[in-house]
């Protein structure tokens, strides 16, 4: 049988006398060290904000498919007439498959409401339970589109669903992989500006032609960037028609 020359600690055996002080120091050091590390890490994080799932909802409105599906509300128990809301699907999927055949039509939607102050959204139920055109397609509601000029904006590119409250946090570097997965699933990208433009800090992104821009922005999500482009107001929502070649990482 081998003899051990030095005291050796194992969890199930008695603690050797020579190692008691070392063990106490290790145990206290670990508890204090991890507590300090947890405090330092948590205290340097930004507030995740008040975005959250707000329960089931329904709405009727005019559907706009490009650049990403949004609904201009006509009537709803939870949204005001004229509100514009981002639509998304279940999980990390957008609503393009449900919406693509109904552009410009009056549709009825059902799902779960997402709310982060100036950004509102709905996670649709699957299939026609989530989105279907109404029988009456007559409406006097016109969707006003107004150009606000060309802007240089600084901020962060996020996915509209997580930012709206599906995730907390829905911003920041820690959320980068999640944001990219959502964007690859056709969830609408949203630019969070460092300051308000015409009263809003949240801008739906499109390319310069007003179409989806996902593939051009994947390398710049969840980090602070600057970019140029035209800003338009579509109903109640701002659309940032970003020029991808102007995107630069902020220092």
């Amino acid at each position: 049988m081998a003899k051990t020359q030095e005291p050796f600690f194992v969890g199930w055996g008695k603690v050797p006398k020579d190692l008691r002080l070392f063990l106490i120091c290790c145990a206290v050091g670990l508890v204090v060290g991890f507590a300090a590390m947890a405090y330092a890490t948590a205290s340097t994080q930004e507030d995740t904000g008040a975005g959250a799932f707000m329960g089931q909802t329904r709405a009727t409105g005019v559907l706009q498919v490009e650049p990403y599906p949004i609904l201009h509300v006509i009537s709803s128990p939870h949204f005001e007439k004229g509100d514009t809301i981002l639509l998304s699907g279940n999980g990390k999927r957008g609503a393009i498959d449900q919406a693509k055949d109904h552009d410009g039509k009056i549709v009825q939607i059902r799902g779960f409401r997402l709310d982060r102050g100036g950004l509102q959204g709905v996670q649709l139920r699957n299939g026609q339970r989530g989105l279907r055109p109404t029988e009456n397609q007559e409406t006097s509601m016109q969707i006003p589109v107004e150009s606000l000029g060309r802007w240089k904006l600084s901020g962060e590119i996020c996915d509209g669903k997580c930012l709206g409250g599906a995730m907390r946090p829905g911003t920041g570097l820690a959320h980068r992989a999640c944001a990219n997965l959502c964007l690859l699933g056709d969830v609408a990208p949203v630019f969070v500006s460092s300051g308000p433009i015409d009263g809003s800090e949240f801008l739906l992104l499109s390319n310069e032609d007003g179409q989806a821009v996902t593939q051009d922005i994947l390398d710049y999500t969840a980090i602070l960037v600057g970019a140029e482009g035209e800003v338009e107001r579509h109903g109640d929502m701002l659309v940032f028609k970003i020029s991808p070649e102007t995107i630069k990482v902020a220092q």
Partner: protein
Amino acid sequence: MIFTWYIYAGMAVAAVFLLFGLGRLDENAQGAWVFRPLLIPGVLLIWPLVIWRCVILWRGEEKLDRHRMPRRRQERVAVVFACAIPIIIFAAMFVRQDPAALPPPIQLEAAK
């Protein structure tokens, strides 16, 4: 069939090793019984290795010091890592981007 007999043999080895052999090989395991049933599945699978190791240790051909690091450099590398990881974490907190430092929106052209 072979596998069945292999497991039967493993059960016999496990019984002898865990009841009588372990305490003789490792003085720190003397009087400690609760953890021993946890070793049964492993012994059933690698009982030839258990016998081989027992024979070597009984003969005194090798000290029971496998807790020691096989290379001296490994100990120094562990210390370096223990120091480097907190430094990297705290340095990352200082060099990360600051949203408060972002410039405000600038209008380049008015609406046409």
